[in-house]
């Protein structure tokens, strides 16, 4: 009896993201392209999962599907995506219909279902799941300044925080600020008693601001203390009322939504929020190691280098403190030295913010550095998934073994590198059963049927008939 491994029921477990039997297809002129075929995986909170595979194997499309950013010709034919116990793909089949138009199949979508699914996703994107794209030059809006693009995320998702920050600076008495500054000067910022002091004043947003000033890398300690002293800032009465209302409601009250940004009064209302968003953006840019922050905020994407642009994109991704970041080949468009810096940055952020990451790459080396768990994708199928050390130490699937043997070993000379003969099959007419059976050295008749998922070790699952008994 073949023991297909049962994956846990998504709604009840403690996974952050659960993908089950996801099938994504694209309707094209030449037929239906089955880009993602019955892919399943989980990501726990704080965990980094890597998806590796060749170009065109469907890893990017999987990620896009999680964010519901699949292009117009793509459909979720089957499967489920669960995030924090919520089914993102609920009734997704109702959205589309395949109709025959002469010889071709044409996609028709139901606008109401589309809207429903979109409305659901809009609440999640940016705030709970955010994304970093591959090519930062074309992924940033060329006519908007970098500062504005980062601030945008905050202005959509985190307005109460901005309001509270302003209010905390308004409410806190100057003497208390001076006290804190003196304490920091005397005992240093890592002293626990100083922390207690700051916390005791009961202005949590203030604490946040002090902490971020202290963590900035581009200022000297003396300058930081100076900045902290200057934190106190009063705002006008009407502004205070506005901000308090915003903080209570959790957003700008709908009645004020247009008035607060009219040209002359803007300064005291929405303008304050925008300015504060810029401040937070500066802090975010500092977190991602951006040089020259005050200049960069006003600059446009084409004025930045590739590495800086990618840092800006990462800043946008972490701005609203999402639980999951999807990074789609974030370093593939950068050269190797910058790549190393960005990967180091991502590692730091992961540790400091405890965000889960879905890391997509074609580079096994990169994945080895950054991920806890790795899934290997071939021609739309997830053929193997395991903890990172386990995959490299004990690869099971023939494709994985082939991939690993193609990497030049660091410690010895070899006369030739392992080669996988043949080429990736067409995704419009894939081979029946296991899609690797056309190239696999161990292929048998059985492989013409879809192989089950077998758990060969705890946490290590392979989709291959070789392990079926």
């Amino acid at each position, binding site marked *: 009896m073949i023991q297909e491994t049962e994956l846990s029921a998504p709604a009840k477990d403690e996974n952050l993201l659960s993908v089950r039997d996801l099938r994504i297809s694209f309707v094209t002129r030449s037929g239906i392209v089955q880009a993602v075929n019955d892919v399943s995986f989980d990501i726990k909170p704080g965990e980094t999962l890597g998806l590796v595979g060749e170009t065109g194997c469907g890893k990017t499309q999987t990620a896009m599907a999680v964010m519901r*950013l699949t292009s117009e010709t793509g459909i979720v034919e089957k499967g489920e995506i669960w995030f924090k116990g919520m089914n993102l793909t609920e009734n997704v089949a109702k959205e589309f219909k395949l109709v025959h138009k002469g010889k071709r199949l044409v996609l028709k979508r139901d606008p109401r279902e589309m809207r429903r699914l979109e409305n659901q996703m809009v609440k999640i994107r940016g705030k709970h799941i955010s994304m970093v*794209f591959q090519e930062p030059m074309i992924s940033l809006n060329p006519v908007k300044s970098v500062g504005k693009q980062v601030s945008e995320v905050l202005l959509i998702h985190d307005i109460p925080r901005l309001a509270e920050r302003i209010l905390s600076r308004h409410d806190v008495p100057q003497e208390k600020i001076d006290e804190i500054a003196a304490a920091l000067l005397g005992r240093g910022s890592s002293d626990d008693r100083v922390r207690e002091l700051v916390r005791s004043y009961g202005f949590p947003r203030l604490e946040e601001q002090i902490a971020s000033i202290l963590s900035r890398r581009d200022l000297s300690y003396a300058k930081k203390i100076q900045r902290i002293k200057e934190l106190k800032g009063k705002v006008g009465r009407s502004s205070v009322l506005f901000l308090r209302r915003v903080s209570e409601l959790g957003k700008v009250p709908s009645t004020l939504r247009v008035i607060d940004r009219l040209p002359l009064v803007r300064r005291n209302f929405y303008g304050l929020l925008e300015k504060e968003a810029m401040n937070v953006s500066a802090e975010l840019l500092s977190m991602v190691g951006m040089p020259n922050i005050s200049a960069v905020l006003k600059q446009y994407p084409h004025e930045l280098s590739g590495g800086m642009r990618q840092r800006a994109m990462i800043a946008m991704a972490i701005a609203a403190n999402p639980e999951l970041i999807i990074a789609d080949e974030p370093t593939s468009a950068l050269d190797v030295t910058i790549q190393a810096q960005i990967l180091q940055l991502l590692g730091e952020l992961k540790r400091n913010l405890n965000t889960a990451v879905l890391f997509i790459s074609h580079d096994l080396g990169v994945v080895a550095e950054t991920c806890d768990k790795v899934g290997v994708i071939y021609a739309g199928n997830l053929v193997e998934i395991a903890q990172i050390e386990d995959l490299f130490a004990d690869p099971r699937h023939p494709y994985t073994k082939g991939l690993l043997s193609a990497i030049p070993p660091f410690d010895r000379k070899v006369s030739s590198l392992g080669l996988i003969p043949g080429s990736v099959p067409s995704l419009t007419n894939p081979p029946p059963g296991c899609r690797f059976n056309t190239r696999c050295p161990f292929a048998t008749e059985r492989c013409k049927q879809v192989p089950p998922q077998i758990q060969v070790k705890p946490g290590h699952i392979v989709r291959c008939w070789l392990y079926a008994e």
Partner: protein
Amino acid sequence: MTLRYYVVRRLLLVVPTIIGLTLIVFILTHVGGDQRFLGEYINIHSPISVAVQEQQLTQRFHLDQPVIVQYFYWLSAFFHGDWGYTQTPIYSGPVSGAISLFLPNTIVLATLSSVLTVVIGIPLGVWSAVKKNSLVDHATRVFSFVGYSLPVYWLGLLLIIAFASPAICPCFNLFPVSGAVNISLTNGLSWYQGGISYPTHVLLIDSLIYGRFDIFADALMHEVLPVLTLTFSILASVIRVMRSSMQDTLNQEYIRTARAKGLPERAVVNQHARRNALIPVLTLMGYTIAGLLGGVVLIESIFNLPGIGYWTTQALLSGDIGGIMGGTVIFGLAFIFSNLVVDILYGYIDPRIRY
């Protein structure tokens, strides 16, 4: 480079362009040799004999001197406001006088049409692209396609026929089809003589100055059909370009990023897509404005509005070279100026070209 620097540089570019314009006009007036040139100015009905006239004209235009010198004289006359003489049925006198009389009306027509075009065209183009393949989209596309293919003066004629003959359409007499104002209203007014109103030469403004709201309303009614016709033909190409540019923009990667940030679709369109989509529209704005200025000529002729286009047409029909060249100069200047405005707008919207 800041926007200011870019604007200054662009302004400086205007000067050589104007010089180029004068060069062309000068060359045109002297095509065919001196005899031809003189022939346009000689008045056979004048008591002065032809020979004497030739002599006078030769002196006046320095025809006995090398071409370059002639050009410089011409150029200096140009910058002093002396743009030659015109003799047409509606006006005879210095060209500068004709321009001051006729230009305001043309400006009114052109401005009203442009404003209407932008106010209707841009949102419609955006909407049509966002709601692709909807009823609005199809209707807009058909509408703009027809407008693009329709000869503008023919549309004007059709509207005249429709509004002027009771047999064709019950909309008879809803809007006046000719002229700028009902003559009976302006009989005996001190500030309206010979088809021209004073002091601003714009009937719509002058009537307000003198408190004659009935004349104002009537003049406005007279502008309705011409403005509608002109707008219709320009609108078509603006919608076309806006729609296709918006479609292209919505396929860009940064729009995907905007969506990934959690922006609702409306904000994506308004705050990210639209500005970028306007860039190609501005790029083609030059061509559109050229069409607008050409259309002005045709519309004024059909609807008998006393503007620059009308004057130019009259000059063509009566063989008046001064009028034609004056018209060319004005149209050239108008075009140069509007291109300047468009380029500045372009620099404002797209920071990439300020380098």
